[in-house]
């Protein structure tokens, strides 16, 4: 019999408290976006909503332009990443060598280095190749920075495919491509989808490299938000409106794909 956890009431209250604590900034951001600048500073909970800040943001800086850049960089970097990571993960999962574990660890270790450590070399490379403030530069950086996670996630997904099934496919006369197309792909679709989704979200939310490598031309939504925290002072309502616009698509997207995302993050962790 499963033991019931003690103090159900205390636990319920505690979970609600923590959930609300985490949700509060988002909630505040949401209502501030519909305030005037004056109301925003006053900080009242009750007010007459207005769309003035959104109109102002769209007028001052072209939201759609930044959204387009975000969309292109995240989608292209995800697709590109999957194309590179899938064969890598395939060879590591099905043709292990003594060094496979080390290579995987080494790949992951690159994620442990602070991004700022690589800022100067990457910036100089982008500058000398004339790729500053360009979409390809961001796509390359996003792809490379997400690659270790993608390889790891796909590796765990592929590892779940029983070896017997692959051998059966081979005996049935399958080429390497047939094997991938008819056995591995359909069996690991869930893992591949969640890998793609996660990397899409990570690329969309990426701020460090977008802020440092782009300006008006290839700037993503992160760059748009940053414009509203300027040295001349904070414009809370407009900052909130811009932020809400930036995160809205990915929140909607995440809402619909949360099952896949959770599956991807716990892949291999639970049997």
């Amino acid at each position, binding site marked *: 019999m499963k033991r019931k956890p003690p103090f159900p009431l205390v636990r319920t209250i505690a979970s609600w408290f923590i959930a609300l604590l985490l949700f509060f900034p988002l909630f505040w951001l949401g209502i501030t976006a519909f305030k005037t600048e004056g109301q925003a500073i006053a900080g009242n909970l009750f007010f007459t909503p207005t769309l003035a800040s959104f109109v102002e943001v769209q007028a001052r800086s072209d939201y759609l332009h930044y959204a387009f850049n975000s969309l292109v960089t995240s989608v292209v970097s995800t697709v590109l990443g999957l194309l590179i990571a899938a064969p890598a993960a395939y060879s590591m999962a099905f043709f292990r060598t003594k060094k496979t574990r080390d290579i995987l660890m080494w790949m992951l270790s690159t994620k442990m280095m602070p991004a700022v450590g690589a800022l100067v070399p990457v910036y100089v490379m982008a500058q000398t190749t004339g790729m500053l403030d360009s979409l390809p530069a961001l796509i390359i950086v996003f792809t490379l920075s997400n690659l270790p996670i993608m390889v790891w996630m796909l590796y765990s997904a592929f590892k779940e495919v029983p070896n017997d099934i692959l051998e059966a496919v081979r*005996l049935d006369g399958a080429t390497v491509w047939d094997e991938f197309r008819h056995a591995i792909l359909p069996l690991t679709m869930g893992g591949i989808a969640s890998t793609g989704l996660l990397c899409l979200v990570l690329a969309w939310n990426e701020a460090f490299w977008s802020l440092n490598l782009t300006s008006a031309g290839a700037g993503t939504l992160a760059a748009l938000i940053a414009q509203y925290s300027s040295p001349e002072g904070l414009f809370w309502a407009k900052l909130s409106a811009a932020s809400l616009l930036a995160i809205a698509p990915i929140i909607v997207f995440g809402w619909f794909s949360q099952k896949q995302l959770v599956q991807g993050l716990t892949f291999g962790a639970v049997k």
Partner: protein
Amino acid sequence: MAFLELKNIVKEFGPVRTIKGIDLQINKGEFIVFVGPSGCGKSTLLRLIAGLESVTAGTISLDGRDITEVPSSKRDLAMVFQSYALYPHMTVFDNMSFALKLAKVDVAVRKEKVERAAKILNLTQYLQRTPKELSGGQRQRVAIGRAIVRAPKVFLFDEPLSNLDAALRGQTRVEIANLHRDLGATTIYVTHDQIEAMTLADRVVVLRDGLIEQVGAPLELYDRPANQFVAQFIGTPQMNVLAAAALPELTRIAGARLPADGSVGVRPEYVRIGRAGEGIAGKVELVESLGSDTLIHTRVGANVPLVSRQSERTSLKLGDAVGIEIDPNALLFFDSQGRALREMQRAA
């Protein structure tokens, strides 16, 4: 000329030599069973034939063609796995027709072949189901069906019945035997179950420790084992093997044939339990009543175990004193290395 020929096959995994040099010739249409204890290399040998592992040395040829370096997909073999290895995302129909689809066989032909195989295996009503909607026995039949549909040169079975319960195992064993009789396809079957080996095989290959101990028809192995290992591996309960010096009465029974430093084997059905005072004096240690058979475990002489098997039931109990007779014509003799001494058997 043999249909499938293994010449001096050696397989090493790192420093471990799993297959230590095997020569074997298999004829077309033969049902060959590889049998042996776990770790004897029987599954590895099958995987080498399938091309799922590469040989370290030696050659494999099939139907006159050297296939040693040919990849699995081009060897024209079909394998039934212990785990069934069905494609979980495909229906039974797709599972069975997958190889034909890869070979770009015409859709109508595919359908016809799958339906014919499904009929043989009683799977017709399940063709549109996925494997997870089937019972273990049905999955096993789909795995067999997948192999049949392709009409391969050789069928390979890797312990196909070990995931089934006892009743289903017996039933499927009969089905496999019937199938082989009907199709006449060359088959190699790996098992650790000697009942399967005895009932299915035309010839049994007994393996131990990466080497062939003996190849022969089932009853040949039973009656004329090449050595003590085969003698004791084939047959349930195990053959009694006693050191020649263990029991003074052996000299009386075997006479001059008794090897001085070897051992004597006798199958339990040739050990008769009689009244105390007749034959060799012994004590009942355990009685196993199986219904059709009764196994009586006794101790004789200096605590030497001796098992008897009889078809009559018994009222003997633990500790009862008995007299034991051994049929002198049923004795097998082994030298000190455990090799069978042929010339002495069934003499006298």
